[in-house]
């Protein structure tokens, strides 16, 4: 049953509806987090500073040996293979939601990075890759002389 309360002394204004709508939208997108629903896997978060980039991605269940990180010019690729799920006749499956199989994702970086100065760590199912801009690609400061 629809109930409407009219309370002229408590006027919320036209923005109340907008806020409600925003909340509803946020709730919809909160649920859309399963990696299987995404076309690009794995999703990454990227941070940048003047001369460095940090990329993180969640790869629960992998070990550092399962991940490859080739870098070419401005593109970092994250490749890996999840271990095959348990199999056998004696196993009865109830639910299988976790990701398996192989994946490959290439991320274009905001600038070229030095392939010798890449620091990659893997802990608690999260891969963190730190990259540095090579010396010759750093923006140069031009000295202006007074005439």
């Amino acid at each position, binding site marked *: 049953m629809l109930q409407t309360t009219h309370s002229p002394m408590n006027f919320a204004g036209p923005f109340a509806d907008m806020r409600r709508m925003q909340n509803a939208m946020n709730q919809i997108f909160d649920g859309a987090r399963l990696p299987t629903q995404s076309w690009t896997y794995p999703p990454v978060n990227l*941070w940048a*500073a003047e001369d460095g980039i940090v990329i993180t991605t969640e790869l629960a269940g992998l070990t550092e040996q399962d991940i490859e990180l080739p870098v070419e010019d401005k593109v970092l690729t994250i490749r890996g293979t999840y271990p095959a799920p348990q199999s056998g006749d*004696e196993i009865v499956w109830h639910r299988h939601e*976790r990701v398996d199989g192989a994946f490959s994702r290439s991320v274009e970086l905001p600038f070229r990075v030095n392939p010798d100065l890449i620091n990659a760590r893997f802990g*608690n199912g999260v891969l963190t890759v730190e990259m540095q801009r090579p010396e010759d690609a750093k923006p140069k400061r031009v000295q202006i002389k007074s005439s």
Partner: protein
Amino acid sequence: MAQVITTQDAHGVATNNGDANRSAMAFTPTVDIFERDGTTVILADMPSVAPEDVDVTLEHRTLTLHGKVKPYAPEGYRALTSEYRIGDYIRNFTLSDEIDQAKINATFKNGVLRLELPRSPEAQPKKISVKTG
């Protein structure tokens, strides 16, 4: 065989943005559940959670998995793109009486929680021998 475990749907989140009681978000971890040799195994993905921040509680027949996430942001950097969000993980399961609750085993490795729930001996299938008359 009786249904051992009932779960909530994976596509929801435990706590939403609109919930005024909590400002942080919580996510439902994806799980695998299978049974082998009378033991039910639950694997739950909880990346970004440190082993000491995982809580598994059993109250009556409700098993709750809770993983607390410490937010991460590299110092001196600004966020350029965020394709995934981080937050705590919460998921509940209802266990049947057939689980031997004293023998539940939990391990946490590489962001994955592994729970082993053995069936209690009384619940193991019994074989009744039929004698010839």
